[in-house]
Structure formats: C-alpha cells, structure tokens
C-alpha cells in the first residue's frame, strides 16, 4: 500500500484515506483510492465540501508547479525536473522565473476569476526551460503544446530568455485556458481572437501584479524578453500606435487597428499574430473608457466571453456580439455596455 507523507501530495491524510476505503458511498471509496494512489488531482475533482474537514480546505489548492530543463534540446519534452511546487529557489534564474511567473498567473486567475488552473480543476502547471528549436539551436520563442509550457533562451541579441516576461507566461497559459474553454480554432479570425485573448490576459496579469490602473498601464506586450541588441519598446501594443517603426532589425509593426486594414493572406495561419491587433485595440478602448483596474469589469466581460460565450469558429463580429451581451450584466444600456459597443464600432467590426 502506498503511503504518502508529503503534505502537498496527500490532502486526505493516509489514515483517513484508509478508513474511507471501506465507506458505503462509492464516491468516497473512489476518493480514498485515488488519494492512496497519489492521484490527488483526480481525487480533488471528486471532492465535494461535505467530505472536507474545515482544516483540509486550505490544502485543496490547485497550484502544482513543475519546472524542467531541456538543456538546449527540443525533444523529448519535458526534460529533467529541476524545481517542483514548494521547493526553494534554485540557482538557475530561468527556472525561478518560470516558477514565480506561473504562480502569479495561477494566482491571478484564482483571485480575479475564481478559476483553479487551466482546466478549473487544478491542472498541473509544467514548464520546460532552455528549450531548443527544431534544429537544436537557441529558440526565440515560448509555446504551450496542449500539456505544458516551453520557453527558449533567445538568440542573446534581439531576444533573451522568454521566462523573463510575465505577460509571455500569462499569454501562453491563457492558450491553455482557451483549450479547455472556447478552444478557438487557430487560424483566420477565430485564431486572431485566440491570440488576442492570450495577449489581453497576459497584459492583465502584469497590470494586476503591479496594481496598475488603466492610465498607469503601458499596454505594451513582450518587453522583458527583448535582448541587449533590441532597440524597440515592445513587440505589440494595444494602443493605437505602432509598437515600432522602421527599426533596422524588427522593421515596422504590422498590426492593424481597424477591420478594414486586416491581413487577408495565408501566412501565419491567416495572420493570427497580426489581426489580433484589432480585438486587442477594442479591449484597450473599452478598458480606457470603463476605467479603474482593467481586470475588474472589462477583464471580467472578456473572461466570461472566452469561457462560455463563443463557439470555436467565432468571428470578430461574434466576439463583439458576445462581449456586448455579457456587458449587459452591468445593466442594459449601462455605461459598461456602451463602452464595449463603442470600442467594437471604433475598430470597424460592427
């Protein structure tokens, strides 16, 4: 029989789980078996408040982080475990950044939206660092592959390690949330919406962490992973300006801010990283009008929409209709609803 004494592994203490194995209630027996088998995530999902002693409630937290090191290779993930939930900081800064920023994103979703990790059921948060690209060269990228996060170290010139940027971590984990919610198809307008929600939530985590109002936020995305040779302010901006213009390395920011300027070609799966500029700008306009902290009202409208307001093939217009409908929660014809409608009108989607 497996006895687990780690406080974070066993939220049902072994003595209790052993007793519960012989319960008359099949659900209780299932929880006991899952707990003894160290399948604490399964067990947690089965738990209802009636089985929880008050002292256990605090331990049923979904924050379960693991950081792995790929040492420059691309495959097979995840690599060597270097830090797990509850471990003290390690020497590798990238590992500590992945750990801390993932924790911040988890805390943001829990505190602001009441969400318990990516699947709202304590999905373990695994990150691999020092991930190489397909050719085992340094990777100037970060991604979520459906099961875990991966972070590259950059080229050392234009980009540094991608773990450095909290909004990058928030962006990638939000792709994870999206995969468990609206699961927006990753091409054309639905793909650009997918990208936009990821940028928006990534920005909100950053603003929340630094307690910034809409006027204090700079609304730029992707700053901290820029390297010593980069002369631009950030990779994207949700404001109406270009994030960079005529830069010798980066060129000019291609993102449109109005529907008439949308990219209609096939590159980048129909421009998912380009056309995201349009819904991003709509969020910015709504947030600036509604004011205060962007995650409170505007963020909640957008979160409720991405969680349960959209089909996977949603268009920009569908997102506009859905956010306007959700904003009606603050009252039909309320200032909040007017702000959301006006934002989508300004970017030419409605």
């Amino acid at each position, binding site marked *: 029989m497996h006895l687990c004494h780690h406080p974070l592994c066993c939220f049902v203490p072994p003595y209790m789980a052993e007793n519960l194995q012989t319960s008359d209630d099949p659900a209780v027996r299932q929880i006991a078996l899952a707990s003894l088998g160290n399948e604490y995530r399964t067990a947690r999902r089965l738990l209802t408040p009636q089985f929880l002693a008050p002292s256990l409630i605090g331990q049923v937290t979904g924050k379960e982080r693991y950081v792995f090191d790929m040492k420059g290779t691309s495959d097979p993930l995840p690599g060597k475990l270097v830090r797990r939930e509850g471990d003290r900081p390690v020497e590798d800064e990238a590992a500590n950044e992945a750990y801390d920023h993932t924790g911040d994103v988890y805390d943001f979703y829990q505190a602001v939206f009441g969400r318990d990790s990516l699947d709202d059921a304590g999905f373990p948060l695994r990150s691999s660092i020092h991930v190489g*690209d*397909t*050719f085992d060269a340094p990777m100037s990228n970060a991604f979520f*592959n*459906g099961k875990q996060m991966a972070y590259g170290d950059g080229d050392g010139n234009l980009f540094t390690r991608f773990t450095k940027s909290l909004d990058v971590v928030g962006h990638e984990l939000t792709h994870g949330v999206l995969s468990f919610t609206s699961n927006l198809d*990753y091409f054309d307008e639905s793909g650009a919406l997918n990208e936009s929600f990821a940028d928006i939530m990534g920005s909100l985590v950053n603003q929340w962490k630094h307690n910034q109002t809409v006027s204090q936020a700079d609304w730029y995305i992707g700053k901290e992973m820029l390297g010593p040779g980069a002369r631009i302010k950030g*990779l994207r901006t949700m404001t109406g300006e270009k994030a960079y213009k005529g830069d010798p390395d980066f060129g000019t920011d291609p993102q449109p801010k109005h529907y008439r300027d949308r990219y209609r070609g096939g590159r980048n*799966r129909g421009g998912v990283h380009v056309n995201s500029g349009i819904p991003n700008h709509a969020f910015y306009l709504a947030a600036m009008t509604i004011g205060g902290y962007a995650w409170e009202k505007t963020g909640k409208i957008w979160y409720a929409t991405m969680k349960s307001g959209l089909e996977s093939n949603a268009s920009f217009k569908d997102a506009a209709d859905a956010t306007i409908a959700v904003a009606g929660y603050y009252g039909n014809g309320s200032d909040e609803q007017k702000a959301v409608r006006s934002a989508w009108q300004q970017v030419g989607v409605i």
Partner: protein
Amino acid sequence: MQITVERSGGFTGMPLTLSIDTAHLAPEQATHLRHLVEAADFFHLPATVSVPAQPDRFEYEVTVREGDRKHTVTVGEAAMPERLKPLLAWVIEAARQR
C-alpha cells in the same frame, strides 16, 4: 535551383525569409544541397501536413524551384517530417553565415 524558406508564427510573430540560389554557391555546396533535396524526396512531400495546430509554434513554408519544377511544402514545426529537417537546417545555417 532556388530554395526559399519563410518562417512565420511564434509568440513574437516576426517573419523570417531565407533564400538560396545554387548559382551563387560553390560547386560542392550546390551538389550537397541538391543531395539534401533528393534525400528529402521534396517534390513528393505533401503540400501540407494537417495536424491540430499548437499556439505560438513556428510554421515553415519551403519552396524549391528547379527548371520548370516547383513545389511548396507548408508545415508546422510540431509536424515536421524527419527527412525535411536536414535540408531546412542546412538552408538556415547557410543563410546565417552570409
């Protein structure tokens, strides 16, 4: 023979375009490149490999032109055919050196 590689996607969304023309290569390099194209069986690779997309992964669009033959393969890095890798790796490295 001309080879063009266009990489798109990634968190940064920064596009990358690389081109090689065998007319501008030393003879041994040109021969090696042709060999890599043969080894990839490039002209018989499917134009696209359809797998579920992973967000923020790179996509590669590779075009090879020789005489009146032309073929383009578009593939996400998560679904890259093994035999295409040596060709892509060589083109990326050669472009980096120029």
